[in-house]
């Protein structure tokens, strides 16, 4: 069994290594013909751009992606600068017609994205030519190895009961150097994905056949991300099933998040795209889905006929009716740990790191500040955007719509939710985004705290203050602080993962939905003591 496990680890590492090394492989260049073709396809009008591209990337030289990218970016910059100079020249000459004409020659877009698009066409080499084989050597080997590593646990872990043995002895789960390596890898991964997609263009080649089969187009970096997301959740979901196989709540919950991620977040949008509809994730609620009310989205929905209208109405109903009503009945868990994709990753890939959330009072204070600020930020952004959309202006109260959207997307969408939210798993715990950042969680939290039937019941006086619950609460809730006082846990941040209940050695905690009456039960004297004294002091 152990051998199989290590063999699996070996396979996984090989697949992982090939995948990582893929970035450095292959070469990039254009023939003149290919360039012409590309330029007419994109509709670039600038002669200068064409000239420069001819000089830089039409070559026999086999450029690496990094050389290629820097050349392309420089080219676009030179060309754009050239036209800008002309614009200001015409401007000073007051030659308005010329100035107006000149604008069409400028190419807008982020340099790395422009470079990604060209690289996608200009790439050559093994990963481009043999995507299927490449898939098996990377993803295939990785998944196979990981499963081989995980599945023997059915036997190795022994009896199906809570197994946290050695978590604080292992480098990977006790903030050791393995954990730091994983952190660095994840952070770099997200930085590349969000800000330098051209560097990972080779990865997208691996997924072209699958992408074509699903949506009829080649894979973008987001397709790669979506696919990896699902694959990782599945593999780590298998780990979850094995680790908590005695716990039906965990089994059902894991099945649910896997289902919603794979079907709702991945397959349905892809299929919709292939049918020329806007790809929409029907479970992704605003304000987590922060660009739902962006102009481009509203326009695209408007232009998509009945389905577009349906999505628009659904999106609004989801946020203002379905989400809060469900929270009233079941607590925020129905979304955060049963449905949501971010939660899904946290509960599968992130499970080995759940103990790292900070339980201190200061962290709780910080949490309340930050998460509510993000909520306000997202609402402000949406108000500005909608105002501008309907009034046709470009700013509200001096806040430029484009600026606030860009800032939010950059700070919250990319850095907070991605780089920090997931990248920091191995050291700071698996729910950083959900706890400190997610505006939807903040909104659900209000409902859960003030109007819900959900609570974690504390079982009278049975708590022995051991601290397992607090330690394994991914949301950094000091569960023990409540349990040892005999108080039910009613906290806006609780995502109802149920792990505190699973790890408690004394059966003290139970997640349940019940009448609102009696949900909050402050106690001064715990159950077990003199009945009169309890009455006297608790009333």
């Amino acid at each position: 069994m152990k051998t199989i496990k290590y063999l699996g680890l070996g396979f996984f590492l090989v697949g992982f290594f090939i995948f990582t090394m893929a970035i450095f492989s292959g070469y990039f260049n254009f023939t003149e013909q290919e360039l012409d073709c590309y330029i007419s396809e994109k509709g670039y009008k600038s002669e200068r751009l064409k000239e420069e591209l001819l000089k830089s990337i039409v070559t026999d030289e086999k450029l690496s992606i990094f050389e290629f990218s820097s050349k392309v970016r420089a080219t676009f910059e030179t060309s754009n600068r050239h036209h800008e100079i002309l614009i200001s020249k015409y401007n000073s000459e007051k030659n308005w017609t010329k100035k107006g004409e000149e604008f069409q020659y400028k190419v807008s877009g982020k340099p790395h994205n422009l470079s990604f698009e060209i690289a996608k066409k200009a790439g050559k080499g093994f990963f481009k030519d043999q995507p299927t084989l490449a898939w098996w050597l990377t993803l295939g080997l990785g998944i196979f190895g990981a499963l081989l590593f995980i599945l023997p646990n059915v036997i190795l872990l022994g009896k199906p009961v809570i197994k946290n043995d050695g978590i604080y002895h292992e480098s990977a789960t006790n903030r050791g150097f393995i954990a730091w390596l994983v952190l660095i890898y994840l952070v770099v991964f997200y930085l590349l994905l969000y800000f330098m997609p051209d560097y990972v263009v080779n990865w997208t080649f691996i997924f072209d056949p699958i992408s074509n089969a699903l949506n009829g187009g080649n894979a973008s970096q987001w397709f790669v991300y979506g696919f990896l997301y699902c694959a990782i959740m599945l593999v780590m979901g298998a780990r979850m099933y094995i680790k908590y196989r005695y716990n039906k709540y965990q089994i059902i919950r894991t099945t649910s998040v896997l289902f919603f991620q794979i079907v709702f977040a991945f397959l349905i949008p892809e299929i919709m795209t292939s049918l020329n509809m806007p790809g929409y994730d029907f479970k992704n609620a605003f304000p987590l889905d922060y660009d739902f009310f962006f102009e481009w989205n509203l326009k695209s929905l408007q232009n998509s006929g009945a389905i577009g209208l349906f999505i628009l109405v659904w999106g609004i109903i989801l946020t203002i009716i379905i989400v809060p009503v469900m929270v009233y009945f079941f607590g925020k868990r129905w979304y955060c740990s049963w449905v949501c994709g971010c939660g899904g990753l946290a509960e599968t890939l992130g499970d080995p790191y759940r103990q790292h959330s900070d339980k201190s009072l200061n962290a709780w204070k910080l949490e309340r500040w930050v998460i509510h600020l993000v909520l306000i930020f997202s609402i402000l952004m949406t108000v500005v955007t909608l105002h501008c959309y309907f009034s046709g202006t470009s700013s509200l109260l001096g806040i430029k719509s484009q600026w606030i959207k860009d800032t939010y997307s950059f700070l919250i969408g990319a850095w907070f939710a991605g780089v920090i939210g997931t990248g920091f798993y191995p050291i700071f715990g698996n729910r950083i985004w959900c706890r400190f950042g997610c505006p939807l969680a903040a909104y659900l939290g209000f409902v859960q705290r003030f109007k819900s039937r959900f609570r974690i019941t504390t079982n009278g006086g049975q708590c022995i203050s051991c601290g397992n619950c607090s330690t394994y609460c991914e949301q950094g809730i000091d569960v023990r602080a409540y349990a040892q006082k005999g108080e039910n846990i009613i906290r806006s941040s609780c995502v109802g993962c149920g792990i505190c209940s699973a790890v408690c050695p004394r059966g003290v905690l139970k997640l349940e939905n019940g009448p609102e009456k009696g949900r909050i039960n402050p106690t001064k004297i715990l159950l077990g003591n003199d009945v009169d004294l309890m009455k006297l002091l608790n009333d």
Partner: protein
Amino acid sequence: MKINQQKMEHIVIIGNGIAGVTAARHIRKKSDKKITIISGESKYFFSRTALMYVYMGHLKFEHTQPYENWFWKKNNIELKEGFVTKIETDKNQLLFKDNSSLFYDKLIIATGSKPNKFGWKGQDLKGVMGLYHKQDLENLEKFAPNKGVCKRAVIVGGGLIGIELAEMLRSRKIPVTFLVRETSFWNSVLPTQESEMINRHILEHQIDLRLNSNLKEIISDENGQVKSVIIEETNEEILCNVVGLTAGVSPNIDFLKNTNIACNKGVLVNLYLETNIPNIYAIGDCAEQTHPIVNRRPIEAVWYTGRMMGETVAQTICDKKTEYKPGNWFNSAKFLDIEYQTYGWVFSEQTKSENEGCFQWQHPSENKCISISYDKNSHEFLGINTFGIRMRHEIFDQWLSEKKSVEHILEFLADANFDPEFYKSHEAEIVTKFNQEMSTNIQVKKKSWKRIFSKV
């Protein structure tokens, strides 16, 4: 403010376990008296019950501390590290090992327990240890860091701490021999059905369980370290590197020997937790009731008792003299993988009285079972043991207080289930068996929130 503080009564508590800390917290809630907690073990309160999880790698030591370090200062509770060697009751003064001293106006003794040692030969060798204090854990890390250093450990005494120690060592794959004096594990407390289930479960964990076995002596190697133990009954020698002494605990009160505070095994207290000396109280593991409360032992070395005594003594100290009147008995533990809860009194066959009937149910394949005891004549429900099934404390407490009949318990058993959602429940099977045995016709009622909360 400062002047005021000096005039304030000074409450000194020896021992920062659950008993002492609970007392301090409740005194602070009700007054602004000066409070000092003394401990010779660790500056900050930690949960002794969680020591095992630190060794097993579930927790770090800091996780066993229920309060953050700023808590004490913020609540104006002073913490003093030091070991009290003597109490001068005539001078209201404590003397410390480092020769310092401290005055008190009122004193609470909450010094807990220490592991029993019965004068075995070799009981003080290196590698022989109890499992009680933080230092024991450090000792264990030293002598049993892994199965390479510790080739085998022998545990002496089959109680709750013994089985925890066995579980700890097994988590590092260290071979364990478990010497249990009784004919079956903990059968002075548990009915046979349950005791035997635990026996089997111990064996499932590859623990070498030796029933009917007493320790004769511990043998030293040339370095004064454990080499082996000899079993009394068979004279068998078992080679080992670590010996865990877990044959119960007794009050940790040696430092009171030459004082005029009346002691027996523990510090003798009346129902108000007062000792024979005015203004001195004793609570927790170290307190011994002069007149034990019905069914309860004079010394109750359990977490909950320490806590309840702390809650009570705080009232008395804050001028609301309150009798210690624990409510219905409850307890819980975990035997390796099997959770155990008990409410009310279920006695083993050895200790139960004539009028007690016991209804039992056991799952055909899983480690789950229950025993419900009742009065044969009145059918009053007396208590329940559950293994592998969680039960709701409040409901059972209510049923016990209201002296419900055993039939009532079975009918409404679903209300009391506390297992996580979606778990399979067994009320139907349990009641069917009860109906067969007792020729009754009880129908299981579905869980009702209304009934569960009828009390609140």
